[in-house]
């Protein structure tokens, strides 16, 4: 299922190693072993991915938390979810 499919509830790939360091995620990509960091916004998205929320629901919560325009956050979350999927970090 694609990241843009409505109703999809992504989960984190359980083989991805990650931890939050001072409010930012440091993670190792399962496929390549490369190390990436997420900024505070990316970290919050990652934390909210739990297999139970849709991307739209995550975006809605983030729009509230960051006091940002909902449509812009929703678009950014879709793009980010697609990027994470391409890197094998999200399971749908």
């Amino acid at each position, binding site marked *: 299922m694609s990241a843009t499919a409505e109703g999809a509830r992504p989960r984190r790939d*359980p083989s991805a*190693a*990650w*931890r939050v*360091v001072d409010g930012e995620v440091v993670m*190792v990509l399962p496929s390549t*072993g490369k*190390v*990436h*960091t997420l900024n505070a916004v990316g970290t919050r998205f990652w934390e909210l991915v739990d297999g139970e929320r849709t991307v739209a629901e995550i975006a809605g919560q983030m729009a509230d938390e960051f006091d940002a325009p909902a449509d812009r956050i929703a678009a950014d979350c879709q793009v980010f979810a697609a990027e994470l999927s391409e890197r094998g970090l999200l399971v749908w």
Partner: protein
Amino acid sequence: MCLAGLVVAIRADDPAIRTLMLRAFTPFSATSSGDPDARLDLRFEPAAIWIDGSPEPRADVAGDVIRVEHRDFVGVIGAEGTQLVAVVPRDVLSIENALRVLYALLLIRHDGLLLHAAGVVREPGATVLFGRSGSGKTTAARLARGRPVLGDDLVALRRGPSGWCAHATPFGGLAARRRRARSAPLRELFRLRQGPAFEARPLAAARGVAELLQSAVLPAALPADRVLALERCGALLAEVGVQELVFPLDNGLWRWLDERDR
């Protein structure tokens, strides 16, 4: 053999390999009556079976074992990482590579980390300068004239009862194998970067952990090892700190660090 307090019992079926081992790794040899932390079984193979030209080993998990292929040895490691059976030619570098893989796995499982780094004893402890190839590790170690060098490419870090220690390794060719097996409390960790002028600055926490992790030796791409490595790097950041050290390629590096401390 003993490195960072971890003992590996080595067995070789080939007398020539035994002789090579004894001569090459004398400073790190150890006799121990207790159980070793791991075992290395070296089996001689004269044929040219080595086809992988990449500098880093490839490791795949197959059932209960990790299969390692390197440019000059092949091996099988039990999933718990405590026994490596390696097929090697009569070549010290191949044996060194097998040892490096085994010790990287051992360290990560015993509160430690094998790091691509230069380590220099600068009382009251060790200064460890890490970074990827070309960052200046070898140059920095070479500039440390008169100071004990723990490594110019690979340094073992391990947390003991009184904190983190940096340990010399015999990995990196003849000069490394002749090095004394010394250790020192880990005083500071710098991510090396070459630049126009000396400067040391703290790294943001997440970036510090990410940079450390990128310089850690993780020979087998096992998710559990990556989690352990993340924990180790997080602990190093919290307990020792990680800074970025910009340095120009000249002789003043260690003098500059000394003056900075005054």
